[in-house]
């Protein structure tokens, strides 16, 4: 049991839990939270894989996860804005 394995396994379990919640729950907001949890799991796995071997950690996955986090936040904001518009009453029909 090494630290990368524990860390990556936590990521995999987060991924599994998020996948279940994404499929099982109907409300859009819950699906969105579940999707973010899945994404965090993938980031965990990626960072754990960067740590393989006794050498210095691989900077490439670190860079990808770093930008990935910020991109995930902004994509979530866009999805929330879309969801909000979906639930608004249709006020511009017939124009």
């Amino acid at each position, binding site marked *: 049991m*090494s630290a*990368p*394995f524990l860390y*990556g*396994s936590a990521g*995999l*379990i987060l*991924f*599994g839990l998020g*996948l*279940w919640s994404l*499929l*099982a*729950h*109907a*409300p*859009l*907001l*819950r699906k969105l939270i579940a999707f973010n949890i899945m994404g965090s799991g993938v980031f965990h*796995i990626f960072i*754990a*894989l*960067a740590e*393989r*071997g006794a*050498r*210095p*950690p*691989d*900077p*490439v996955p*670190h*860079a*990808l996860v*770093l*930008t990935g*986090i*910020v*991109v995930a*936040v*902004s*994509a979530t*904001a*866009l999805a*929330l*804005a*879309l*969801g*909000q*518009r979906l*639930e608004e009453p249709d006020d511009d029909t017939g124009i």
Partner: protein
Amino acid sequence: MDSQHFSVPPRWSAWLLVLPLVALTLWLLWIFHVALAQSPDERLAERALAALPESGVTNPVTAVLLNYRGYDTLLELAVLLAAFLGVWALGEAPRGFAPAGPALRGMIAAVVPLALTVGGYLLWVGGHAPGGAFQAGAVLAAGGVLLHLGGDPRAGLPAPDTQRALATLGVAVFTLVGVATLAFGRGFLTYPVAGAKGLILLIESAATLAIAVILVAVYVGGHPVERER
């Protein structure tokens, strides 16, 4: 989003998914365990670390982000810009929050200047230690989010036109640097070794501002409304 929908329990058929998903997770765990045990034969890390003296920075993550894979980071900034434009295109921002009470106001007065300082520090330190545009932008944006929670409808952002200009700044400066290196016959985003540090710092500064503005603007959640109050 409707809070009444939120607590709807899943249908009974959803529980049938549990067993296959547990099996999938266990299978993936086993694959991950095997993959970790194998020593990787060739990683990008060796090449990334070997080229570090030519990259203009000493932090390998920043070198990957802004030098070796500059193209990638440029497109990620473009994704951020697209999300920002999407949120603005969806309509006006919802009403902000009520003005904060004294405790939150006091906290905001202490934390927002700290966020600005830490953001500036993270931007500079990215050259040689963990830090850089994305972290700095996120910390600055946290300050903006706090201001919004404290009742500022604009979350500390400038006028809408300035916001638009700042949000495009990251992609614009990045692309201009790429075109300039192209014009000097070096290829898109292939920096000269001597000027690499300056160019990276220029791009990182523009990207920090753009990331911070975009993150706060998407948190505000729509095109700003000019309410005279």
